[in-house]
């Protein structure tokens, strides 16, 4: 599952000032292997400054369309890979890519009759766009109600494509933009030029969500709610939905990681690490600030991982002794944590001695 395939970059498209989309060419022989569900992501591997790094990027293309695999990458301030991709990737490059993966996806069926509520903010649009297109295309009777938050009109990713979908599927697709800092005259422009365009000022927050669901109640009563966005957007949206009694089993979330800025926990310097990995017992030291995963990679080992963001849980291992702090945990549920499982890509030592086993 953690094998990499070299895919050729087919197209590089600047989507906004700070985001680029990359399309990959999948050779015919790999078509089936690279099949995916709308909402899943690819993991890319690069070697930047002598260091191997991996990052996950959600597919924004639709498996129901004859279109190449595409990801959208938004620059993160001081971010290593997102800026590398935006600055350096060009058509024809070969990139190491893992097979599509992820538990955030919509299981679609032609005969389904559902209402999908999609909540996206910023670059969180990528998996949502894939779900959106695939629903409209495969489920002829289902409805999509989507609320998409951005800073201003300039930062709306895939705006053109969304507008096209709105026209084509006007009877089943409602899209409302909400902008936290709309350009002053934008709303007027919006209203005069394109009459039935709907927008709102503000973020995707409790008020916006309640307003949206009251304004656009479901017609098909089998509803599902998909959420993807940065920072606290996911948590807030989920909370807002729970507050109006949306059952948890109908809510699906995807987080892109990113450490919460409030986390200032520091690890112990030079703790000793004993790790059992692929039948080998590795003894080494965790130097200043590093995670268990990075320590092992830097020691020339091959621990399993993909997102390095605390999301995918590929890097999961079991803590046999010692204590660690996870900077971010979006991959493991409480019962797994209680059993001693940790995400090694997020774990820094809190005790002098750490012992883990990759099962």
């Amino acid at each position, binding site marked *: 599952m953690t094998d990499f395939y070299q895919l050729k970059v087919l197209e590089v498209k600047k989507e906004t000032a700070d985001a680029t989309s990359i399309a990959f060419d999948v050779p015919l022989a790999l078509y089936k292997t690279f099949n995916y569900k709308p909402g899943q992501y690819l993991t890319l591997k690069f070697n930047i400054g002598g260091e191997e790094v991996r990052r996950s990027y959600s597919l924004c293309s639709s498996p129901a369309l004859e279109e190449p695999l595409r990801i959208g990458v938004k620059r993160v301030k001081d971010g290593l890979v997102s800026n590398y991709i935006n600055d350096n990737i060009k058509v024809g490059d070969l990139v190491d890519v893992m097979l599509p993966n992820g538990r955030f996806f919509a299981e679609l069926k032609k*005969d*389904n*009759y559902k209402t999908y509520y999609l909540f996206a903010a910023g670059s969180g649009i990528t998996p949502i766009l894939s779900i959106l297109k695939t629903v409209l295309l495969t489920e002829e*009777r289902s409805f999509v109600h989507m609320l998409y938050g951005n800073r201003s009109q300039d930062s709306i990713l895939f705006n053109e494509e969304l507008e096209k979908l709105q026209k084509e599927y006007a009877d089943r697709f409602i899209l409302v933009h909400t902008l936290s800092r709309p350009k002053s005259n934008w709303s007027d422009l919006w209203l005069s030029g394109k009459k039935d365009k709907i927008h709102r000022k503000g973020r995707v927050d409790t008020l916006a969500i309640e307003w949206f*669901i*009251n304004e656009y*109640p*479901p*017609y*098909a*009563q*089998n*509803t599902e709610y998909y959420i993807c966005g940065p920072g606290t957007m996911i948590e807030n949206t989920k909370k807002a*939905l729970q*507050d*109006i*009694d*949306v*059952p948890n089993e109908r809510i699906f979330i995807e987080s892109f990681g990113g450490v919460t800025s409030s986390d200032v926990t520091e690890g112990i310097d030079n703790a000793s690490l004993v790790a059992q990995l692929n039948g080998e017992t590795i003894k080494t030291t965790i130097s200043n600030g590093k995670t268990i995963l990075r320590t092992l990679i830097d020691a020339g080992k091959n621990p399993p991982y993909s997102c390095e963001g605390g999301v995918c849980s590929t890097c999961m291992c079991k803590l046999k002794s010692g204590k660690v702090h996870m900077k971010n945990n979006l991959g493991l549920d409480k019962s797994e944590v209680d059993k001693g499982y940790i995400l090694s890509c997020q774990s820094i030592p809190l005790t002098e001695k750490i012992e883990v086993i990759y099962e």
Partner: protein
Amino acid sequence: MHELPVDAYTSQEWFNLEQEHIFSKTWQFAGLVEDVANAGDYISVQAGLNNIFIVKGKDNRLRAFHNMCRHRGTQLLRAVGKGKKAITCPYHDWTYNLEGKLVSIPKKEEEFPDLCNKELHDCGLNLHEASVDIFKGMLFVHPEKDAPNIMEFFGEVEPYLGPHIPEELIEYQEKKDGAFYTKEINANWKIIVENYIDQYHLAHLHEDTLNMYDHAKAEFGWAGPHYYFFEPLVPEYLADVKNASPYPLMDKMPEDKMGAYVPWLFPNIGITESESAWNTFHAIPLAPDRTLVVIRSKTMNVSEWEYTKQYTKSMSSKVWQNIGNKGKYEGDASDPMASGNFMEEDVYACEQQQKSLSSPLFSVGAQAKNGEFAVRKFQSVVKEWVEKYRDND
């Protein structure tokens, strides 16, 4: 020639079979979307053997549950109501939230010490879930939690329905909270359905009451287990329809589609979608020889003044001097056949037919190839549903 035995229309045994195998296994009409308008609003309906209530959550999604307390089975909610925050059984005050989860039992520790050591909602005593969905502005319930989706049931007939958007219309009510028409008819429910889908009788029983429609141009057929029907206005009415129509015309109805769409959705809900009104016709079996018919009627959402103007124009239109103005027989208006009212004519025909079923000499002598084809088809669908399950039992 006749797909069903006479028994099917007269015996308690057949009535029970249908209740169990048809009305408890299909999507059942439960009302109109506006009946459950706001969070906390609810209605309850009898759907075959099941009493089911629908309640709207704060998330604007409808939920359906079997209307039966998990303690001793008492019915929880009566008829209709608003603003529910929790559901409490009148008998012992067991309380459920709007998700159907059990949230409190009076004297739980004393009286039910061994019930279960988990949270109440994990004790397996939550309300039984049912399904609810919306089709063409109508609410439907299904007794199963994971019912086949409603569009799998109605999808095939949908393209044959009228262009009306019932959600945009308003209900015509003579008295508050009362349906437009309610009547207990002394006939088996299938007699009433067969009358509804019988194209052959239109030009005869209703020769002077429904002659504003062009029966010769009727298009009808079968889609899934459902019947569809359309007939245009007669040219004379069409030419002056803007004036002659009794109510303001449907705005969603293009001139070339002007007419009456009269589908029957299996098993027991008809819709009558005309140039100026949109009606549901719900046939509820009460006994082998008794059926309650409830008609709800919706018309354009425009001002009283528009209605008054239209009425005045309609009254003075010449169209009604020649058509739709008298009964089949001459006589006193209290005689249904002289009433000039097509509903009364139909009720009369149905009740007379039901009476004859008890005659030892009763039989159906012949069936019209086209005009009564739907009658035979409907009978075969009923038979199929009953037999499908009877064989498996």
